[in-house]
């Protein structure tokens, strides 16, 4: 355990997270007061002070969101670096499975980033209106989000303190290969690919034609299909090896860190698109700019993945 905790990247990660949690805790305390005493129609200095405090809460959350988005990439980089110390691990895939907390931590991290994006959209809407109509809603939302973040923080510590450097773990070929994982729902690569491109086209069309519910469902499906497509198909073209199936190896420098781009575009695009759709469905807010950015990100993602396949085919004349 000492080897892990004394590792500089782990120290930096935990330090950053701790500072972030400290600030979020301050924001939480202020939120409690806001929830208790907020009354926009009052003209008291207390109410004006609350309005000012709500700005602090939003600044802290913006800081936390930006930092978290950064830290999740850094987290993956850190566990990749830890693969040296964990026997059997060749990349982050093995290290994540070093204990039961790893996967939950990753999923919760992603979920909280998404929820933070949604919070920020609501906040942007709220401060633009004349009477802060969503103050209570967003305050309660933040408080729930804070609880999730506390759980996540706890998982961070549990995860890093329970990595056993004496116990061997499986490497990605076992986890994601024929033995361990596999494409679910009985799909094969071809069907998966068809689904992948079809969903993408559906997303673009439904966004363009403003069919919000269809957009939302297809985006969610695309997240799942996209993940499996990258791991079981596109990844093999990045590694140029049909048996190498792993979501983490592509983050290493051998592959020019392209993994960060691939996953960043997929998750970023999906999160932003879902965020704008939520705004449209629940708050009747158009979010055109957000939708555009998200669609471009997904477009780049699809282009990047397809690009690797194209380039391989052009170079070698065959597919894998």
């Amino acid at each position, binding site marked *: 355990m000492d*080897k892990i905790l004394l590792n*500089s990247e782990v*120290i930096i990660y935990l*330090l950053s997270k701790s500072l*972030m949690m400290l600030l979020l805790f301050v924001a939480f305390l202020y939120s409690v007061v806001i929830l208790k005493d907020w009354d926009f129609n009052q003209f008291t200095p207390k109410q004006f002070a609350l309005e*000012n405090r709500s*700005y*602090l809460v939003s*600044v802290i959350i913006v*800081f936390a969101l930006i930092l978290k988005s950064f830290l999740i990439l850094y987290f993956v980089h850190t566990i990749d670096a830890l693969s040296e110390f964990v026997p059997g691990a060749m990349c982050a895939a093995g290290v994540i499975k070093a204990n039961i907390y790893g996967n939950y931590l990753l999923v919760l991290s992603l979920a909280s980033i998404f929820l933070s994006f949604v919070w920020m959209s609501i906040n942007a809407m709220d401060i633009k209106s004349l009477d802060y109509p969503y103050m209570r809603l967003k305050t309660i939302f933040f408080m729930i989000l804070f609880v999730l973040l506390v759980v996540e923080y706890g998982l961070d510590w549990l995860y890093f303190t329970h990595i056993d450097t004496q116990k061997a773990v499986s490497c990605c070929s076992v986890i994601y290969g024929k033995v361990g994982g596999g494409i679910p729902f009985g799909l094969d690569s071809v069907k998966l690919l068809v689904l992948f491109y079809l969903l993408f086209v559906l997303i673009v069309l439904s966004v363009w034609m403003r069919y919000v519910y269809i957009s939302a469902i297809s985006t969610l499906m695309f997240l799942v299909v996209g993940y499996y497509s990258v791991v079981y198909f596109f990844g093999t073209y990045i590694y140029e090896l049909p048996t190498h199936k792993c979501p983490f190896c592509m983050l290493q420098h051998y592959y020019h860190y392209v993994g960060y781009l691939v996953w960043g575009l997929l998750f970023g695009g999906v999160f932003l698109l879902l965020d704008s759709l939520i705004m449209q469905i629940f708050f009747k807010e158009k979010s055109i700019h957000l939708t555009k950015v998200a669609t471009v990100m997904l477009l780049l993602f699809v282009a990047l993945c397809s690009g690797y396949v194209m380039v391989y085919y052009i170079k070698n004349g065959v597919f894998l």
Partner: protein
Amino acid sequence: MKSSVFLEFASGFVLRQKSKHLNTMVISIVLIFILSSVMFVSSSIKHTINSSLNNQPDFVITPVQDGINQTLDIDMVEQISSIRGVVRVNARVYGRYYFRIKGKSFLIVGVDFFDEQNSKLLQKLIGDNSLDEFFKQDNMIVSSEVAKFLKQHFFDNSYTFKLPDGKFKSVHIYKTIPHNTNLIANDMIVMPIELAQKILGLGEDEVTQISFDVPNDAEWQNIENKLYLKFYNINVTNKKEIKSYYDDMFNYKGGLFMVLYLVSIVTFMMILYQRYSSINTNDSKDIGILRAIGWSIKDVLKLKFFESFWVVMSSFIIGVVAAYVYVFMFDAPLLIDIFIGMDNLPLDIELTPYIDMGMLVSLWLLFVVPYISATIIPSWKIATTSATEAMK
């Protein structure tokens, strides 16, 4: 671009108030400089050691240092080769030859050049010239430092060794190799194994070290056990152990530095918080004025963030560049002594520039996050001061 009006104004605002930030910047630069230097030295040494380790064989067997057995029997080579899974078994002779008693010494490395692997090594060392030339007479290959030393003592093309039995042996310098090519160490002389044995007073069947590779990782433990069962007076070291040893050492030293850094960054954060909070009347007044002429809280926060960002990035860049120059151009005087005061490190290690993105990102995070964290609340306080209060 619309935000460029803001940038234009903000740049002017920040740049004209350089002196306000001078204190903060100086402390920041010093902190980053120290931190970066430590990281650069540490990772450079680690990288050099790892690289050279990669070129080393997986296993090295040495005799147990008990005063009696200082050598291994060359017969062991065949016995070890017969173990399944072992390849490229290689015997070498190492020894120190003292030019003067208690004075300058050279490390003599005797290699069996008729071995396939080693003949490749020899070719590498002597370049294009044919191997036959080398074997025509007693030849040796020396490092440039050795050559220089010998020349100073009037030995230009060859050197006459004094053998333990009192006789003399003249050996011709075949080639000189600069030591920074990673092929030869500073005080090394490479020669055929038989020659080395003569000069060091060893018998034909005595060697100092036997090394070999085991391609299959899973077999390592197994083979080590077999070796200990077969032979009594040996010490078996494997590459992973060495790597692990150095990793631990760096982690530990790294961890120590981290703790020191954490203490200083916490202090720094407190200073920052204080500094940003203390109602600097001019700053507060300026912000009050901006608020009065139509800047919202959001706008002021943007300005404050821009200010912090500018300070942070400038300090970071200056600190890192200064550290780079200090470590890789001046070989980190003073700091390197802290690292070198360790066992088993080559004393004259040269710091080769090695930085990767991950390190820079880590450095950046390690500094920027505490800085911004410490200044968020004070910045907000200033942004929300009432305009009229501030202007009084």
